[in-house]
């Protein structure tokens, strides 16, 4: 491998890091929404329970 290849691999590695970071952010946003909806479901269930 020559150094030019190495430089390319470093650049690709950095691109992979950025892609992973952005993917993680997107999944984190999904999980946040899931948590909100889970809370909504919990509230909805508490209203529907026979004791209420």
């Amino acid at each position, binding site marked *: 491998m020559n150094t*030019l290849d190495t430089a390319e691999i470093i650049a690709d*590695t950095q691109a992979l890091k950025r*892609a992973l970071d952005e993917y993680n952010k997107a999944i984190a946003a999904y999980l946040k929404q899931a948590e909100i909806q889970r809370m909504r479901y919990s509230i909805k269930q508490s209203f529907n329970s026979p004791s209420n």
Partner: protein
Amino acid sequence: MHETFSTGPNSDEEVVIPTEERAAPETVDETNIAISPEGTSIEIADSLVNPESLPPNETLADSAAIENSEFNRTVESIEIGSTLAETHEATLAEIQQLPQEEQAFITTEIEQSPEGKSIIATIKEKFAHLVHAQSKLEQKLTDEHNYNPKLIKMVGRIGNIAGGIGGTIAGHGFLGAATSVAGSKAGGMWALKGFEKVAANLPQSMREKLLAKASPEQIERLASAESEKAKALEIHEAKLAKLKEVMDRVAHLSPEDQQAFAQGMEHNIKAQTGAEVLSEAHTKHQTLFEKFEHKFPMLATATEYTTHVLIGPSLHALGIGKDVLHAIELMAAGGGAEHLTKKLVNSGKHLGDILNKFKNKVSNLVQRKENILDVGAAQAA
């Protein structure tokens, strides 16, 4: 007029090259890397050094050291990002374990809300970028003869993530657990295959080794390992083909005969024990490698990786679970584990023996059943 270049990243020497001795100007542009017969060193200088960012007195060795440090930081960041992504995967898996009604409520609400739609679209886009970046790097590492094992491990981890539940969201919406498990398994195999492809080259330790060519001994050892791997695969494939043939014969029996066969198997204590032993062996492997993963989280050596190349496909051919294959991958990536390597070799052989015994038992039962049927048919005639 002179320009100064160092002779390489590991050298402190500097070579003063008179400009007039360089190749003819008409064949060289400002970034040309082949400017003299001794151009190797100059190639390195031109490709690595950004004149705008490098202080005038800094040598190429300094530059390489800085780049090495940045590279390591990037790989470490990927490692952290991979851990985060795996934590996300675990949280998604928890959601999938919720009661069906609750799960349906959550996913439907997200999929139907404008914000949720936007998030899912973003996941799809980012997922595509991630897969592209992972594949590109994997391909590049495959094409080269030297690579950084730590980076390979991270690339493999991302391959697993891409095949996991997040990948399911990106591809088909939030599906049931079974689909996700299948997706995850496929992703795991994909990562493993990628890892194997990459490992067709010998591991090197870090950046400075990444610059060096593999030694003839290493190349010879790899060739030997590849040859052994091919032989092992051939043997296992032949065994599996025979087993498949036996199972096909069972499948073509009439429903009554199949039932009789199944009852025969149920009453066959040895066959049951064989299946149980296989299952237990699988569990033991999982436990062993879970411990291993915590003890030896990274690093790689040619010896361990060679073992992976040899054993991974064999166990794959034997139909052993993805978790074990993943564990083998981790073990292969782990340093200083000779005793575990040996243990794995023995365990792999043991599993093969068990499967063979089981296969023979099935074969004998089928043969016995067919003999009975043949005799019955002859008597009826």
